[in-house]
């Protein structure tokens, strides 16, 4: 393994890329959290004066965009990267260099978005950037340009990762791992990747039209010239609703791994959980206009989308029953991971219920654009996605770092976050019903909103304390905690069959799978223990590559050019082309005109390793 910084820059190892995703995304979680804290400070009292109206607009826009694209999605990506190949019994993803490319474009795109702060032009039209607010006429600065271009970059990153993981999951399952033996986390990852590759092109087009409006004077969203701002809303929510499932399905997958492990009982109704996940993904493309009930699309359209939205609640509810039934009668070990999973079920249930409420258009007419919707989306996104991610963090931390986390600190972590979260967001239901609109930078006293706003702001600090406890726990664990065994939780899936952290090549011999809960079956003697084949003399791993970061640098250079000078666009494009060609011929040229490398000439073979960690056999 190449060491040092260079090793990380050129790495194509899915585990390292997973860690890069995780660390970067966690930093952006803190950034987004800081923005949220400023928002809440501003709203703590009537007539707040912490920030100006303009800054407030930038804060909520950047907060939403950061949390969705730079925190929750890449935190999920960290688990996809690290865990999915291990669960599949694979040595890496299908396209290791593309995997590195996804990460670098994500990193550069995130930095690009946040660079807007330094030139005083942070995006300010909300995370869904409704048309007309984003028109050049009303927003002449570079704010929206930063937003459009960085979203395009992040989209490219997600799309590349999407293709990569679809192929990885379909095509790199260990022998014997049929689809119905795949861990649910892998299943939910697969559905998520399909949602990504199908939903992101739609917003790409929406953003292209916006870009043309702003850069080249077209009138796609300009009603003055016959254009229709509603087209943006449709394209955005055609992407946006699948996007909310992109954010939640991985958490559902994590919880479906954590619950059976700590209830010591197989997941209840595995096929139902899988099929309902697929149904949710498919229905997700047919309900987007529930975000547009107040637009006035007409009774027929509203009714159709209301029915679709309520239908989608069914597979969602089914899953909740499955999780509860998994716990029922189990021999439960209340670890922190399980606490977070339980928190997920409870909070996601509440978010789902408020969702069903505004699935009814008349109700939504009251709630749209009020703090009630803010409460809903945070119950599903924080109480749902983020709690799921924390369950995953506590569950897989030993695997990823080779160290245990403190369970005592974990308990504090969970309860502080749980209480803080509810104190922050539950009152927002009241605020919304009391008529407080979202996205106002201040309000007059005496409207009945004062108390709940103050309570909500207090909650943020409890929540932040919980995150601090996590950071402390993590640092202490990396510094001095006891080394983690290969299988600290009596796990069911293949990642627990290898050491913690796993060796670079994951599995000495690719395992053969006979059961859905393969490791349990093995440990209980229910799976055939075959005589281990002789360990391979060497294991081929993809060699490190410099070109992913070169291509990503070219892409971001071109993006920078779009805001500054055309010459930079050309330069960036040239770097991309150069990088892409060197990439394509990286192996061919080193072989001097040959075709395929002889199979024993791996640039990075691992010869004669002692079987430090044996596979599941």
């Amino acid at each position: 393994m190449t060491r040092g910084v260079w090793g990380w820059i050129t790495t194509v190892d899915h585990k390292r890329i997973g860690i890069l995703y995780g660390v970067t995304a966690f930093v952006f979680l803190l950034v987004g959290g800081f923005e949220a804290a400023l928002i809440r400070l501003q709203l703590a009292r009537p007539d707040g004066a912490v920030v100006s109206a303009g800054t407030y607009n930038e804060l909520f826009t950047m907060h939403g965009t950061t949390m969705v694209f730079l925190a929750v999605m890449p935190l999920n990506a960290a688990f996809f990267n690290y865990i999915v190949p291990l669960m599949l019994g694979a040595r890496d993803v299908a396209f290791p260099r593309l995997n590195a490319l996804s990460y670098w474009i994500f990193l550069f795109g995130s930095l690009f978005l946040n660079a807007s702060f330094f030139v005083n032009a942070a995006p300010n039209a909300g995370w869904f950037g409704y048309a007309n607010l984003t028109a050049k006429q009303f927003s002449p600065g570079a704010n929206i340009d930063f937003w459009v271009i960085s979203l395009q970059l992040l989209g490219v990153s997600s799309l590349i990762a999407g293709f990569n993981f679809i192929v990885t999951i379909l095509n790199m399952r260990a022998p014997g791992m049929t689809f119905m033996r795949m861990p649910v986390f892998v299943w939910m990852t697969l559905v998520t990747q399909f949602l990504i590759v199908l939903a992101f092109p739609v917003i790409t087009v929406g953003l292209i039209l916006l870009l043309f409006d702003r850069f080249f004077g077209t009138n796609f969203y300009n009603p003055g010239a016959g254009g229709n701002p509603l087209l943006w809303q449709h394209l955005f929510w055609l992407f946006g609703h699948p996007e909310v499932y992109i954010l939640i399905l991985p958490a559902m997958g994590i919880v479906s791994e954590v619950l059976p492990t700590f209830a010591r009982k197989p997941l209840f109704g595995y096929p139902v959980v899988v099929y309902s996940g697929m149904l949710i993904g498919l229905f997700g493309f047919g309900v987007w206009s529930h975000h547009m009930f107040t637009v006035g699309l007409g009774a027929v359209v509203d009714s159709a989308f209301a029915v679709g939205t309520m239908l989608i609640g069914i597979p969602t509810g089914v899953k909740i029953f499955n999780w509860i039934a998994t716990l029922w009668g189990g021999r439960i070990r209340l670890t922190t991971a399980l606490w977070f999973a339980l928190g997920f079920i409870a909070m996601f249930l509440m978010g789902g219920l408020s969702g069903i409420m505004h699935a009814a258009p008349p109700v939504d007419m009251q709630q749209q654009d009020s703090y009630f919707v803010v409460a809903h989306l945070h119950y599903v996104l924080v109480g749902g996605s983020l709690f799921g991610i924390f369950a995953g963090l506590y569950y897989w931390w030993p695997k990823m770092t080779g160290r245990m986390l403190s369970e005592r600190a974990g308990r504090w972590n969970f309860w502080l976050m749980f209480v803080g979260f509810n104190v922050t967001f539950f009152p927002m239901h009241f605020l919304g019903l009391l008529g407080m609109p979202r996205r106002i930078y201040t309000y007059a006293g005496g409207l009945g909103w004062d108390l709940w706003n103050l309570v909500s702001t207090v909650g943020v600090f409890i929540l932040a304390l919980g995150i601090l406890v996590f950071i402390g726990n993590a640092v202490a664990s990396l510094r001095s905690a006891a080394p983690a065994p290969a299988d600290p939780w009596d796990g069911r899936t293949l990642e627990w069959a290898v050491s913690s952290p796993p060796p670079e090549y994951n599995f000495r011999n690719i395992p053969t799978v006979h059961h859905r809960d393969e490791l349990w079956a093995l440990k209980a003697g229910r799976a055939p223990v075959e005589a281990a084949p002789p360990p391979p003399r060497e294991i081929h791993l993809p060699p490190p590559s410099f070109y992913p970061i070169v291509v990503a640098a070219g892409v971001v250079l071109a993006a920078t050019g779009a805001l500054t000078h055309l010459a930079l666009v050309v330069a960036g494009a040239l770097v991309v082309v150069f990088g892409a060609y060197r990439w394509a011929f990286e192996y061919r040229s080193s072989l001097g005109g040959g075709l395929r490398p002889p199979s024993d000439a791996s640039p990075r073979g691992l010869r004669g390793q002692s079987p430090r960690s044996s596979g599941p056999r």
Partner: protein
Amino acid sequence: MTQHPPVRTYLLVAAVLAVITAVEVSLFYVTVMARFLAPLLIVLSAAKFSLVVMFFMHLRSDHRAFTGLFVGPLAIAIAIILALMALFGAFVVARP
């Protein structure tokens, strides 16, 4: 490696494609057909589309997984086009 059709099939498919294109363009000029022009043309281009996908892209004989990866998204895309057209009133026939 999957079995690809022989060159003769390719030539035949190309000939059919050329003929359909010729028919399409001539239909455009036949004004009596104006009322049925749109549906006819859509059927004809769908035929061309399928020929290329089935024979030139080999989906007819290739693994089903590839068909799934392509046709599923295609169906969603078509559904979305139709839905958006409906939402924007493209199918509302203006009464004289």
